[in-house]
């Protein structure tokens, strides 16, 4: 469903992503793991063009965008289909919880105000935050903010959700509730690409694990293959740090 081909990206002459190819099927949960500074966030940001790749293509359900000749309108359509969950939540600071979820529905999905708010309230009650509907981000815990960040993506009828280390900025006490929510989405066969440092979570929830190192995909496979029997020495070395 999502076809990422030959994506390359460099910053200040330094090559960060080297010819990345990745296919994601409908309903699949792909976990991207790897050392920090390796280009995982950059890849995710290139997939929905928050960074414009230097070259390569992203295709999703009939829409193909080439990095070298992308039109704003196509880029917006791509982003609409691939909402993003940020490491630091990035909720709209001037909007309440319910408005945060309703905002993309109104401005991008062209829903009426009533419809958008109704959907948003439904999502809030799904994620157990119905009583926080009128709270602003600054009045919520990190865990609550990130659940709303995920809810904001869930509420759209997008094809897939991109998540960049959704629990890395959280105090340990809030990690569980966020992972539980993502797990639930996985059970509902929500297509997702998740960059994560939570190895146990990746192993349990992902259909496929992708190991990245030095701007490239080193190896990928089922969690059993990658965690149980890593082939590349770099994967082995990386995973060894987590299994002690």
């Amino acid at each position, binding site marked *: 469903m999502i076809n990422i081909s030959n994506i390359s990206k460099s910053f200040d002459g330094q090559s960060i992503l080297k010819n990345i190819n990745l296919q994601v099927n409908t309903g699949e949960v792909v976990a991207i793991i790897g050392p920090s500074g390796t280009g995982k966030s950059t890849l995710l940001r290139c997939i929905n063009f928050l960074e414009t790749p230097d070259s390569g293509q992203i295709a999703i359900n009939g829409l193909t965008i080439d990095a070298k000749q992308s039109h704003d309108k196509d880029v917006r359509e791509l982003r609409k289909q691939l909402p993003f969950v*940020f490491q630091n939540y990035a*909720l*709209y600071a001037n909007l309440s919880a319910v408005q945060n979820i309703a905002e993309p529905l109104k401005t*991008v999905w062209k829903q009426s105000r009533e419809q958008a708010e109704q959907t948003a309230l439904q999502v809030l009650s799904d994620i157990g935050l119905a009583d926080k509907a009128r709270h602003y981000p600054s009045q919520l815990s990190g865990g609550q903010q990130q659940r709303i960040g995920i809810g904001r993506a869930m509420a759209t009828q997008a094809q897939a959700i991109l998540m960049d280390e959704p629990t890395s900025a959280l105090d340990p006490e809030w990690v569980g509730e966020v992972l539980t929510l993502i797990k639930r989405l996985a059970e509902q066969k929500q297509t997702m690409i998740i960059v994560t440092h939570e190895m146990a979570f990746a192993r349990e929830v992902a259909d496929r694990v992708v190991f990245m190192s030095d701007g490239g995909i080193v190896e990928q496979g089922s969690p059993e293959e990658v965690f149980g029997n890593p082939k590349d020495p770099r994967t082995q070395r990386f995973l060894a740090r987590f299994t002690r």
Partner: protein
Amino acid sequence: MSSFDFNYLAGLFPILFRYLGITLQMAAMASVVALVLALVLALIRVFKIPLANGFVVVFISFFRGTPLLVQLFILYYGLPQLIPALIGLDAFSAAVIGLSLHFSAYMAESLRAAIQAVPRSQWEASYAFGMTRIQALRRIVLPQAVRTALPSLMNYLIDLLKSTSLAFTLGLTEIMAKAQMEASSSFKFFESYLAVALIYWGIVLLSTHLQSKLEAHLSKAY
């Protein structure tokens, strides 16, 4: 040597109040134009729009770097000599235009700073869901920026209101000019100018009160 004439002072207020309308009208019109213009200038700076950006830098520098009185004189007495179309420009319009240009330069800078102070993640969170630049600006970034810029914008508006008194130098009869006329026929300069000062002071106190109410309201929101 005459002593302070309280009755004369009190009697001035009804006379001056009749000219308050023109002062307030001038201030209101210039405020609206200045705010709109300031937003346009700030956006040109924020988005670094080619060509326009350079022009705006010079525009802001000029209007902040020269006295308002000189700007008003150039606009009203000077430019019509060069541009015949401006000969018909009346003093009221010239004052409104001059005040608007002058204060838009200041307000553009505080709006620009406030827009740039909104974290980049707020733009990204808007773009990441498919919003256009205009939508991100209007729905997410500008509301946050305006809240930051509000105290300084309000101070500039108060300054603008007080600066309308300079319009008397263009021959416009507003409260300052009227007070001067009264003073030169009665020779009671102190009472006359004190009356103007008290009227301005009263309006500014009222504005400051509204300002703090507005700020309190906005800071409650989030």
